[in-house]
């Protein structure tokens, strides 16, 4: 009995660590979001966020940038992952590595490289802020979209595709009614991998001379101004968005496991 007790105890340092450095900071954010600089309860940060046209505009710009980036990534990554997963090449894993290898190069260095090329092509890159931001974020986050799509397309049961075409479905029907629905979990997890960072990674915008704010830039500017309360409010808004996205994602992945259970 004493021995089992010993093994369990190993998780105590990590549990304490999680409570202190993961949970506590979140409660601190919550506290700061609803107090003013003097520590009194206040809803002014909340009201400030939802009545200020600047912050609402930023939220809107963030969403449009993130959604456009996510769709562009999906449109590029889906065919890529599909070809890679469906190909009968022996070394398709090596090929996949080529596509996700940039993931391991520091993103600021990659954006520096991209910026040089864009300057060469466009001349004055500050003339196309939105376009360049979409290109930059696509360049940065594409591997995170390809990887889950590849995984979900690879484990797709080939006999289902054969059955569908034996039953008279043409290629388009098979794709739309079998392949696409079965790859939805991959699509969803790829989309979340891109959507959230592209709402917050303001460094890509900064480096490509897009001076418009996104949600991340707001936190950055409140941080520079030592305004912890409004900064916490923005963090809280992001947390709520992340929470909702995670709930939606979990719903889809549950369905996925059920669907797979049904196939088995």
């Amino acid at each position, binding site marked *: 009995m004493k021995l*089992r007790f*010993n*093994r*369990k105890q*190993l*998780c*105590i*340092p*990590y*549990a304490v*660590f*999680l*409570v202190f*450095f*993961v*949970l*506590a*900071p979140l409660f*601190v954010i919550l506290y*700061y979001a609803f107090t003013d600089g003097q520590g009194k309860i206040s809803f002014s940060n909340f009201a400030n966020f939802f009545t200020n046209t600047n912050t609402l505009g930023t939220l809107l710009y963030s969403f449009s940038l993130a959604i456009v980036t996510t769709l562009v990534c999906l449109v*590029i990554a889906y065919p*890529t992952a599909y*070809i890679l997963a469906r*190909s009968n090449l022996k070394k398709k894993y*090596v*090929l996949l*590595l*080529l*596509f996700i*290898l*940039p993931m*391991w*190069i*520091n993103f*600021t260095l*990659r954006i*520096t*490289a991209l910026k*040089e*090329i864009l*300057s*060469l092509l466009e001349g004055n890159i500050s003339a196309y802020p939105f376009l360049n931001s979409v290109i930059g974020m696509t*360049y940065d986050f*594409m591997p995170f979209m390809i990887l889950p799509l590849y995984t979900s397309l690879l484990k797709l049961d080939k006999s289902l595709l054969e059955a569908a075409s034996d039953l008279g479905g043409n290629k388009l029907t098979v794709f739309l009614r079998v392949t696409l629905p079965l790859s939805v979990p991959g699509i969803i997890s790829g989309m979340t991998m891109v959507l*959230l960072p592209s*709402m*917050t990674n303001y*460094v890509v915008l*900064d*480096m490509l001379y897009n001076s418009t704010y996104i949600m991340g830039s707001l*936190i*950055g500017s409140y*941080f520079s101004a030592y305004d912890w309360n409004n*900064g*916490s409010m923005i*963090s809280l808004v*992001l*947390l709520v968005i*992340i929470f909702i996205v*995670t709930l939606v994602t979990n719903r889809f992945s549950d369905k996925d496991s059920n669907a797979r259970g049904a196939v088995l």
Partner: protein
Amino acid sequence: MKKAAHICWLTLILLFIYIPILVLAVFSFTDASMVGGAVSGITFDNYIELFRNEELRGMIFGTVALALVCSAISTVLATLGAIGAYYSKRTAKTLINAANQIPVVNADIVTGFSVCILLIVIMRISKDTFIPLGAGHVVLTAPFVYLSILPKLKQMDNSLYEAALDLGATPVQALFKVVIPQLIPGIASGFMLAVTLSLDDYFITTYTKPSTFDTISTYVVNATRGSQTEVKTALWALSTLVFLIVIAVVIGMNVLAAKRGKKK
């Protein structure tokens, strides 16, 4: 015909991914001050500058040291945490898993900002102690180490541990000689993941670092704001070196994995 189209598409995407990196690599060996600018000769000056410039050398060394130290701490903490949690009661396990998931889904910027508020604003720990920076990087990396160890724990043959105890091993011996050796692949890949995450981080670093300390990410972002040509072109050399190192590591790991696969 279809195959040709597939190859065309993949080539196109690979060009999009690699042209910026490769063009930058080519220009890093010239004396040009901008990509596409006038080239009057081939030189290794950028590479020499990278090692001669004390600021650059210190920044590179600092980034690597931070990544290695924090990843080592994360790996120890999360490995013990995962083993402990795996053998804990259902409630404790679920709670630890849930808390572990928070930094994984959370935006880096929110993690960084919240750790900054707790440690620097509330607890008044000086940034110069490197404690907030270290804590931030461990929060970022430990959950991923935990996640890469869990599947290995599930695969592990539980009776081996019991057998070791029956044969007279103390729980500590059984842990180090039986349990941990079986988890090595998970621990190794978790550690590698931690290193790459730490090297790539910008947001947590900015919000918690001492003002005189820079990592590659924060340095590059600051450098693109200024107009020091010498530093700018030295960063092209850095980008090329990082690219080559990543390729070497990826090839090395795959050769190792292939060898291990053959032995079995």
